[in-house]
C-alpha cells in the first residue's frame, strides 16, 4: 500500500518541468547578472569581510589592530559566550516544540473543519504576523509587566498578594518567541494537511483504527514534511533572534543575537562582534544542513 500512496501524493505535487529552450549567448548574464551582483557584492563580500575581521585583535580603545589572533573564536568556544549559545539553543528548541504542540491542532482544525471559513482563519493567523512586530512585542511586555494586565487581574482577584515576576524571565522570552514565530509553523503544517488524501483517513477508520491510532500511524507520518518544514522555519529565525530577548528578557536572558547586536552597535568592538556573527551564521547553516539531510529532502521539496 505504501508505494501507491507515495506515488499518488508525489504525482499530484510534482511541478511540470519547463521545456528546454535554446539559450542565446547573452541570455544567462542578462537574467542572472543583477542577482549575482547583489548576492556577490552585498552578501558574500560583507560576510567574507567580517570573517576576516573576526581573526583580528582589538586595541585598548576598541580600535581594530591588524594582527592575526584566534582569541575571538576561542572566547566563544570557551565558557564566556558558550553558555549564551547553549541558552539560545535551549530556548529555540523549547519554542519549536511548543509551536508544534500549539500549531498542529490549529492547522488540523483549519484543514479539517475550516470549511468555508478557511481563508478567514488563515488570514487571522497571518494578519498579526504582518502588523508591527515591535509594537506587538511591546504590547506583550505591557501585558506581562509588574503593573501589567495579568498581574493587575490576579492581584484584584486576590489570587496573589505580590506581583508575579514574569517579565525578564526565560519563560516570557519563550512566550514571545512562540508568539512571533507560530504562524511560520502553522502555514506549512496546514499546507501538508490540506494535501492529505481524505480516502486514506476513511480507509484507516474503515479498517478499524481508533482516532488516536489513525493519527499516529497515518496522519502524522504523511505530514512529516510539514512538521520538518515548519520546524526549520521556526528554529532558524528563533536561534538568531535579538528583539524578543532584548525587549522581554532585558539583561537577564541573553541570546546570541543580543551579544552580536551589543558588540556592533554599543561596544563598537568589530572583531568580537564579527566572530560572534560568523559563529552564529555557521551554526545556523550547519543546523539547516543537518535538518535537510536527516529530514528527507523529498519531504522538504513537497512543501516548499
Amino acid at each position: 500500500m505504501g508505494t501507491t500512496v507515495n506515488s499518488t501524493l508525489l504525482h499530484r505535487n510534482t511541478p511540470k518541468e519547463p521545456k528546454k529552450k535554446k539559450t542565446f549567448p547573452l541570455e544567462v548574464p542578462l537574467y542572472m547578472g543583477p542577482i549575482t551582483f547583489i548576492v556577490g557584492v552585498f552578501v558574500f563580500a560583507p560576510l567574507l569581510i567580517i570573517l576576516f575581521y573576526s581573526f583580528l585583535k582589538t586595541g585598548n580603545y576598541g580600535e581594530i589592530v591588524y594582527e592575526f589572533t584566534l582569541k575571538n573564536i576561542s572566547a566563544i568556544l570557551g565558557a564566556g559566550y558558550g553558555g549564551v549559545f547553549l541558552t539560545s539553543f535551549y530556548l529555540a528548541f523549547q519554542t519549536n516544540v511548543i509551536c508544534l504542540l500549539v500549531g498542529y491542532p490549529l492547522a488540523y482544525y483549519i484543514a479539517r473543519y475550516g470549511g468555508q471559513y478557511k481563508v478567514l482563519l488563515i488570514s487571522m493567523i497571518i494578519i498579526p504576523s504582518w502588523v508591527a512586530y515591535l509594537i506587538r512585542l511591546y504590547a506583550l511586555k505591557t501585558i506581562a509587566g509588574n503593573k501589567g494586565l495579568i498581574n493587575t487581574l490576579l492581584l484584584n482577584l486576590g489570587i496573589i498578594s505580590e506581583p508575579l515576576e514574569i517579565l525578564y524571565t526565560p519563560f516570557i522570552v519563550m512566550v514571545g518567541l512562540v508568539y512571533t514565530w507560530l504562524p511560520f509553523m502553522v502555514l506549512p503544517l496546514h499546507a501538508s494537511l490540506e494535501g492529505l488524501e481524505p480516502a486514506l483517513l476513511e480507509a484507516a477508520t474503515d479498517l478499524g483504527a481508533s482516532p488516536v491510532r489513525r493519527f499516529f500511524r497515518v496522519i502524522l507520518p504523511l505530514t512529516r514534511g510539514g512538521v520538518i518544514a515548519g520546524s526549520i522555519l521556526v528554529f532558524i529565525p528563533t536561534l538568531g533572534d535579538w528583539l524578543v530577548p532584548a525587549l522581554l528578557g532585558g539583561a537577564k536572558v541573553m541570546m546570541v543575537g543580543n551579544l552580536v547586536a551589543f558588540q556592533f552597535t554599543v561596544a563598537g568592538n568589530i572583531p568580537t562582534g564579527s566572530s560572534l556573527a560568523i559563529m552564529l551564521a555557521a551554526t545556523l547553516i550547519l543546523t539547516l544542513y543537518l535538518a535537510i539531510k536527516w529530514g528527507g529532502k523529498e519531504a522538504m521539496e513537497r512543501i516548499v
Partner: protein
Amino acid sequence: MKRKKLAPKILAGLSFMAYFFLWAPVLVIIVFSFSANRYGVAWDGFTMKWYGALLQNVAVKDALIRSLIIASVTVVVSTLIGTITAYGLYKLHFRGKRFLRTSILLPIIMPGVVTGGALLVFFTRVIHIPLGYPSIIIAHIVFSTPLAVFVILGRMQRINWAWEEAAMDLGANRFRTFVRVTGPLLMPAIMASAVLIFPWSFDDFVITYFVSGIGSTTLPIYVFSQMRFGATPVINTIGALFVAVTIVALFLQRAIEKRSKATL
C-alpha cells in the same frame, strides 16, 4: 463513538486559545489607544486625543514618509530584479545554477543581526557608503530580493506556459511575446511578491537599526526609541492604525485577485 464527536470540540477549543494568544496583544493595543491613561497601559475612559496628538506629531510624520519612500523603492527594485531572476531560473539551464539558487537563500536564512552587522562593517569600513537613505535602501533590497525571487518562482510553476508558445508559434517575436503575453501571465506573481515585500520592508527593524546611522529614523526605529522612554500612547495609536491598514490592504488584495480571476 462518543470520542469522535468530542475531538472536533477539543480541537476547536485549542484553536480558539491559539487565536486568543495571537490576537490578545493586538486587541490590547487597539483598546488602549482609546484610553485616557497617559501611559497607555490602563483603561481610564474613552478618548480620541492620542489620535489628535499623532496627527500633530512631526517626528512621526517624518519617519512615516521616510519608511514609505524606502519601502516603495525596495518593492520596485526587488520585484523587478526578482522577476528577471525567477524567469531566468525557471527557463534557463546553465552551469552553477544550483549554487546560485542556494546562495540566493542565504540572506533569507541569515539572522538580522548578522546581515545588519556585516553590512554595517561593509558600508562604513570598506565601500564608504553614507549611512542613511543609500545604506538603508541597499540593505532592504538585499533582504527583499531573495524573497521576491522565491515567491515569483513558486507562482511560476502554476502558470500555463502554453500561452507563450502559442504567441511565438503565431508569429510574435520574443520582445512582443514578453510584453503582451509573458508579462500579463507573470502579473499575479509580481503582485504577490510586491504585497509581501512592502510590509516586510516597511516593518523591518533589526537590519535598519544597524545601517541607518544617526538622523535617518524610520517608523519602526521611531517606535523603538519611544519605547525606551517608557510607555507612550503614541505607540498604541500607531499600532492600531497599522492593524487597520493591514486588514484593509488584505481585503483590497483579495478583491483585486477575485476580479482578475473573473476577467481571465
